């Protein structure tokens, strides 16, 4: 027996309720602690931390992080989509499995080991630096760090795009070819619009992932590239700074606000690109 439609609206809330409750408890409570700490200075409620966190070195660090994450997200998205497409259209099932599982592994790879991989390759004494004639310290710059960050960003994009690319039915390609469309036309007018929502989602994921990464940068470039996560880590866990915890929490709040801004741009775009799909 089919139930009356009026249960539909409540069904939506009911289905989402466990997740919402869980999130409120496990993320919401720490988030409240975070906000409380961010607005406390010397034991009293205050806006000082937030004001400090948007000035001078902290602001440079925040903007540096945003710049790096944006560069990594956009380039990772493009390169990842190409790789995902190559994987998905390959004839060898084993290759597809191997690459997709490897992507799963590498998407979560980072920290000191990743830094070492690249120090060993492109560092001042790296195996490739000599033959390639790299200038000293080339890896320890903004662009060097971006190249390293792609190591986990591209696999992440592959993982996001592979299911989406799977959804491109070959019949569409054939139909397009039969109507006389070139490959370029197919991509521009058929495939990309279908893939756009997933791609946008991937960009956001890559941005967030690069934005909150820190251990690799810490082991490799120290503070040569200004990043907000390094500042947060120095304040919350370290052997030097005491009493800077609340500024770190204010910086984290800034990061959340930045994420909010990204979402504010992304959500309407998402709605527009997926409008015709539903």
């Amino acid at each position, binding site marked *: 027996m089919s139930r009356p439609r009026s249960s539909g609206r409540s069904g939506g809330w009911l289905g989402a309720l466990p997740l919402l409750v869980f999130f409120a408890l496990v993320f919401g409570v720490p988030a409240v602690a975070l906000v409380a700490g961010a607005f406390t200075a010397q034991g009293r409620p205050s806006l000082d931390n937030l004001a400090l966190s948007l000035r001078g*070195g902290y602001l440079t660090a925040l903007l540096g992080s945003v710049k790096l994450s944006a560069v990594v997200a956009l380039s990772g998205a493009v390169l990842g989509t190409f790789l995902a497409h190559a994987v998905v259209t390959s004839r060898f099932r084993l290759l597809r499995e191997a690459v997709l599982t490897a992507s799963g592994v590498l998407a979560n790879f980072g920290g000191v080991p990743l830094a070492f991989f690249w120090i060993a390759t492109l560092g001042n004494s790296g195996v490739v630096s000599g033959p390639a004639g790299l200038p000293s*310290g080339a890896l*320890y710059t903004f662009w060097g760090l971006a190249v390293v960050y792609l190591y986990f960003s591209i696999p992440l994009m592959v993982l996001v795009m592979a299911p989406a690319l799977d959804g491109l039915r070959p019949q569409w390609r054939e139909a397009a070819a039969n109507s006389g469309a070139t490959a370029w036309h197919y991509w521009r007018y058929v495939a990309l619009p279908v893939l756009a929502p997933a791609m946008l989602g991937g960009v956001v994921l890559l941005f967030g992932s690069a934005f909150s990464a820190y251990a690799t940068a810490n*082991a490799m470039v120290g503070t040569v590239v200004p990043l907000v996560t390094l*500042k947060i880590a120095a304040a919350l866990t*370290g052997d*030097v700074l005491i009493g800077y915890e609340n500024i770190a929490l204010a910086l984290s709040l800034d990061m959340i606000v930045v994420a909010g801004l990204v979402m504010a741009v992304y959500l309407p775009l998402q709605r527009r690109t997926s409008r015709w799909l539903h």
Partner: protein
Amino acid sequence: MFSPRARAAGVAAALTLVTAACGAAPGTQRTGQTSPGGVNAATATSAADFGGLDKLVEAAKKEGTLHVIALPPDWANYGEIIEKFQAKYGIKIESETPDASSADEINAVKTRKGQDRAPDVLDLGQSFALSGAGEGLFAPYKVQGFDRIPEGQKEPTGLWVNDYGGYVSIGCDAKKITTCPTSYKDLLKPEYKGKVAMNGNPTKAGSAFAGVYAAALANGGSFDDIQPGIDFFKKLKDAGNYNPVETTPATIEKGETQISIDWDYNNAAYAPQMAGKGIDWKVNVPTDGKYFQMYAQAINKDAPHPAAARLWQEYLYSAEGQNLFLKGFARPVLLPAMTADGTVDKALAGKLPQVEGEPTFPTSRQVDAAKAKLAGGWDAAISG
């Protein structure tokens, strides 16, 4: 949505799960364990409170375990100290997260209050020991040699006591570098392009901060003025000599960090390790910038194993323990006293990196001011 039977089953399952892990906190405060003599180990302030060192050993053995944190095996020879302690008293030591920082240790104490997982003893940087004592996290305890520890190196009631320390030093791969640098001025030479690294960045790593402080002393600054140190590293970066990689044994072996500014006991400990890999690692205390700093020991006030924690302190400050620090190329706090009464291991003392003169120490206010200056100015200097 679900059948009534399924719904009931779900509710029953949830209730069982919830009640399985239920129960209010034990009403009374933690009274601490009492040994057969009726001594409360958690409030004992010296071995005498136990009725003598033997009774302390007995009480500790009864507890059977000691929980330590942030003690890397090759940092001031802690690996051997842990081994010897376990062998001598039969108390199992659980060494957690060796690469934790002082802030992590304090957080662990605060977060795990009342749990068995809390750390018993802490090895902290000076400022952290001071702030932790101020927050009431430590238990006062005077080891047997307490009176022989110099005045400025301990908290009067024994809340924290300095245990070992070292000078900022410059380590160098003598096979890859023709002339090893012996001063901060040397580091600016063009032949060291891309080779001068530190053990992390100064806003986070204690030895790197000390490196900047020492650079300040070497370039006309003082304990009150760390700016010349920051300027020095800016010069170093502009010259292309600064390598931002965090020195680890792996990066030394790979040849990436051929010169490393670090505590002398760390650099000296690399030497035998690297000799096996064909690297000749030399250590020099810079002639123009000498900065000496000590680390401090403290006992967690709510230590799950209070007697074992106090026995650990006694062991570290015994001649045996202090000589083991010496073996790790660290300068133990009782070194002057032990040299005077002959309990020091002369061979080990002779192996310490050579330094001239006596060290001077900044006050905690000077250090805090320096840290604030560094936090404000380091980024701009080094990333510009």
